[in-house]
Structure formats: C-alpha cells, structure tokens
C-alpha cells in the first residue's frame, strides 16, 4: 500500500478529503436538525439510495447540487473568501 500511496497526487487527496468533509457536514446538519435520511430525500425530491450515496462521501457532487442542498437545509456548505486567495472550505 505504501508504494501506491507515493503515487497519489495532492489534487486527488484534496478532492477526496473535500468530498468526505462535505458528506460529513451534511450528515451533521441532518443530525442537528433531527432530520432522517428519508425526510431529507423527500425534501430534495431524491430517493433514499441517492441520499445514501451523497452521505457516503464517494459521490462527485456538482456545484448546483451543493447549492440546492445548502438552500434546502439553510446552511452554507461552501465558503469562498472574498480575496479568493484561499481554497474552498467545506
């Protein structure tokens, strides 16, 4: 596994860390609001299977989807500093 680790690019690591962080944040928000995955699915007009994929941290979410989720949950999932010098923070 160490040999394979040496070939993982920083971009790949960052993309994976972000997708997991976003999924974790959505999960936390649902917990805070006492919302079940079933309720969330209904709110978003999605199936529970699709919601499971979102929460697994392996799904490649689009910006549009992230915005829809942010608005639906009333919580900004993404922040970009005004000076744009820093990276997107979930």
């Amino acid at each position, binding site marked *: 596994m160490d040999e394979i680790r040496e070939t993982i690019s920083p971009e*790949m690591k960052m993309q*994976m860390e972000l997708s997991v962080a976003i999924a974790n944040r959505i999960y936390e928000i649902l917990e805070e609001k006492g919302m079940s995955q079933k309720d969330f699915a209904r709110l978003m007009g999605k199936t529970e299977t699709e919601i499971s994929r979102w929460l697994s941290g392996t*799904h490649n979410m689009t910006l549009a989807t992230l915005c829809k989720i942010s608005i639906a949950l009333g919580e900004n999932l993404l922040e970009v500093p005004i000076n744009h010098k820093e990276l997107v923070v979930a």
Partner: protein
Amino acid sequence: MERNLFLELLEDGNKVSLYSPHFEDEEYSEFEKFLLAYKDNYPDDVRQLVYRLDIIKRDGAEDRHFRYEGTRRDRVMALPSHLETTSLRLYLLNIAAKVLILGNGGLKTTATYEEDSHLHKCVQTLQKIDIQLKQFEKQKVITVTGTKLLGTLTFSIDDEP
C-alpha cells in the same frame, strides 16, 4: 474443501485497523491479490481506494461510508471506487466499525454481485469467514479490543481456491 487461513494485520489506525484473510496455501492475502490484479489497469481507482482506507483509518468506519452487500445477517460491505469513476468494488467485513477485514473484489458490471461468479465468490468467502468469526466472538476465542483482533486468528473455512 477445508482451507486454513489467518487474519493478517495489514495496518493499525487511530480509529480503525485493517486486516485481510490470508490462505495458507497462497503467497498473498486477499487484499494484496486485489491490489495486484487492478493497480496497473485501474491505477486511479486503486489509489482512491487506498486513500479512502487512510481516511477511514483516521476518521472512523461508520456504515454510511460503505455500501451494504451480502445479507442483513452478515457484516459484508463494499467500498466503491471513490468519486465513482469506475465500477471497481472492494469487499470487506466491517467489525464494529473498529476493524475492517479487507477481502478481494473486482469490477461490478452486473446489476447484482450474485450474477458475477468472481464477485460472488469474493462475497461468499467473506460470509464464511464472518460466520466463523461470530462463533469465535461468542465463545470469546476472538475479541475486538480497541482496534485490535485478539485471540486465535488462524482457522479454517469450507472454501474452494
């Protein structure tokens, strides 16, 4: 046919440790066989799986990070390719979100794993190991202590190579 195996500790983690079944008549563990089979033709997917395992070792192995496979009675789960670039799947046993026993896997091109003989075998092997493990856990022959499996990690299952 009875085959002897041992549960080989691959890596310790803060929250999760990784093991893999290693049959005594084979050179590599089941997870090593998976890496060797797919690392050259699916390098990005294998890299993602390895890094995903690093994240899991660091952060934890909650069920929602995996896909349920097998039956409701067993602890077989799957890690899909992160970001779903291909249909490469790694099958594993999730023991109390503290220990992952990494098996083999492959490309899932059928609707269910049962329809693919290789994937079906990967899952069945883990299911047989799970049955034995549960029995040993009940008898306290094997225990999960922290993120370690302690006890007799060598046993046999009825399996075909």
